[in-house]
């Protein structure tokens, strides 16, 4: 492969990345798609009972998550965020473990439904089913980042239907008042299950709402990975500068039914479904990189093979892992050493859980109390 090192095509230079970055981004988009397609195959084969998919969202997710800093920044994802999670440190295996819900599933140890990702190691907030609640968690994470002076950015993503929940209003308003390092990403795929966007949102763009909070509201084409990257880069820089939150709306497509329980032909015109492939970020990005000479046939063949092997190995692994033992079902309702009478042994930022702050937390936050 010729993509290591600092080679920089014109295309890469135009967004301040290297060719290697572009290839890595492309690989993540393609990997997310491959994992996702595998999920449906496993579902049809009766191996996993439920699938909720990110197909059609991957380009936007990879582009937007890319500028955030792994293990420092935070993301509160949603159920379609497979590519987001892959970008931010989770592996194909981690994703498949969540589908199989095995004991060693890093998202929940098999406790949550497929699609409910989360990973403390990678600052990916565990997600629940009620939509939009994660909005406020991300805002709170950004608040703590500001108070502690950690330089972290917090991002969350959700669908356009979910953006109508009250929590989104409360969170955007607060983040804007306090100029928090926060990014709200709306992945607008035109439907909330069966309800089309014009019955969910009163204007064509959710981003129109940003003005009501005095923050930038940006609409990006979700099939244009690098445009998504550029929008998120600007938002992250802005957040880190202390200039406050940004709302990014990526227009994406839902290539599949809402979930494996849904029959979308009942409410979606055939014609619309037929036109979707033309809007898919994956082939767009592929041609863009090929045209720029970044993605050669050789590289693509390598990627395809390595992704195939990775997904295969991940599936085999997940399939072979044991189910959780019912004797563990009562664990972790609470921290297990409570009630704690002694003063807490942890410092600021750690509160007894590894990997939630990093070594700089204590001093940064102590500074914040001056």
């Amino acid at each position, binding site marked *: 492969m010729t993509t290591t090192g600092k080679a920089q095509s014109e295309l890469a230079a135009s967004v301040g990345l290297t060719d290697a970055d572009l290839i890595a981004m492309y690989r993540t988009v393609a990997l997310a798609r491959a994992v996702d397609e595998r999920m449906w195959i496993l579902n049809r084969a009766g191996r996993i009972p439920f699938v909720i998919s990110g197909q059609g969202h991957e380009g936007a997710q990879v582009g937007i998550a890319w500028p955030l800093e792994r293990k420092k920044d935070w993301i509160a994802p949603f159920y379609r965020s497979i590519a987001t999670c892959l970008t931010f440190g989770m592996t194909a295996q981690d994703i498949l473990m969540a589908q199989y819900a095995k004991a060693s599933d890093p998202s929940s140890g098999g406790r949550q439904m497929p699609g409910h990702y989360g*990973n403390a190691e990678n600052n990916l907030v*565990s997600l629940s089913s*009620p939509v939009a609640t994660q909005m406020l968690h991300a805002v709170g994470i950004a608040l703590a980042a500001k*108070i502690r002076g950690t330089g972290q950015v917090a991002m969350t993503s959700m669908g356009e239907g979910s953006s109508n929940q009250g*929590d989104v209003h*409360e969170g955007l308003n607060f983040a804007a008042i306090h100029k928090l390092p926060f990014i709200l990403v709306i992945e607008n795929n035109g439907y909330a299950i069966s309800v089309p966007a014009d019955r969910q949102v009163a204007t064509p763009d959710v981003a129109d709402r940003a003005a009501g909070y005095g923050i930038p509201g940006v609409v990006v084409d979700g099939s244009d990975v690098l445009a998504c990257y550029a929008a998120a880069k600007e938002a992250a820089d802005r957040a880190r500068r202390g200039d406050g939150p940004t709302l990014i709306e990526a227009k994406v497509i839902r290539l599949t039914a809402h979930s494996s329980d849904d029959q979308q032909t009942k409410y979606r015109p055939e014609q619309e479904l037929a036109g979707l492939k033309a809007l898919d970020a994956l082939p767009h990005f592929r041609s863009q990189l090929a045209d720029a000479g970044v993605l050669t046939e050789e590289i693509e063949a390598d990627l395809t093979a390595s992704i195939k092997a990775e997904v295969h190995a991940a599936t085999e692994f997940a399939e072979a892992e044991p189910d959780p033992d019912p004797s563990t079902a009562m664990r972790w309702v609470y921290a297990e050493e*409570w009630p704690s009478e002694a003063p807490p042994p942890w410092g600021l930022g750690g509160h007894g859980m590894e990997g939630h702050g990093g070594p700089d*937390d204590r001093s940064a936050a*102590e500074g914040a109390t001056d």
Partner: protein
Amino acid sequence: MALKTFIEAIRETLADEMRRDPSVIVLGEDVGKKGGVFLATDGLWAEFGDDRVIDTPLTESLIVGASIGASMNGLRPVAEIQFADFIFPAFNQILSEAARMRYRSNNGFGVPMTIRAPYGGGVHGALYHSQSVEAFFAHIPGLKIVIPSTPYDAKGLLRSSIRDDDPVLFFEHKKMYRSVRGDVPDTDYVVPLGRASVTREGSQVTVIAYGLMAHYALEAADVVSDEGISVEVVDLRTLRPLDRETVLHSVRKTGKCLVVYEDNRFGGYGAEVAAMVSEEAFDYLDGPVTRLAGPEVPGVPYNHALEDWFMINPEKIADAIRRLAAY
């Protein structure tokens, strides 16, 4: 050792914990310059500044939801909900998120957050400034629920709550804020969560109560003791986890149990206590486990004649004790 009001104990504890641990912050409506509508946070803003004492917008879901997030990123938020009656816009965040975060992430994340809220009636607050809300939360695994009745316990339990690694709801009966005084040592003592307290020993009837009702139970016990009825009073202090041992030990001794709570009777917290005692002390019971609680109307009405009708008071408790003792 100094005599302090209930609210002084709370205010001091907040200041102490903020001094001791820089990760503790306070947030809520009017908690800053104003110091809270009951002055529970008075002085904190002057001492700790805008970063650690945050006047939020009028948005309870945000207060709780952002506290959850902040607690995952290194802080220990103490959120104030101005009145317990206004906690319900945050119900989803408390139930679906705070209570489940650790379990659903298989211990990946925890939510070391405390939510304080004034609750309770008898203060001319009507339907929306009088409510007892504990039953809704005590039913939720993943939460801990605390209701102290003395300044000493308030301080010791609030310390434990703030230092606890899981979400704690800390309800303060607003009628007690200035009317209840008690000794509070200057030491850094804690009162552990999950332990009830026998506040009066007796042999014939156990009365189980918490919050303001724990005081009224003691008053009622005094009254009936003149009539020769010996009452033991258990102040639960923590509602979840319930200290079953202390409760059962007492009822197995007395053989009779009255559960008193201010909230609506049907499906209230006392139903759990009564069901648990009825089942687990069955062989010791000399009479039915009896409940005395609020009537089945949707809130405490305002006019004093109606409010008096609603509220449990020492006389009503004494009557219930007499009836049970005579069973």
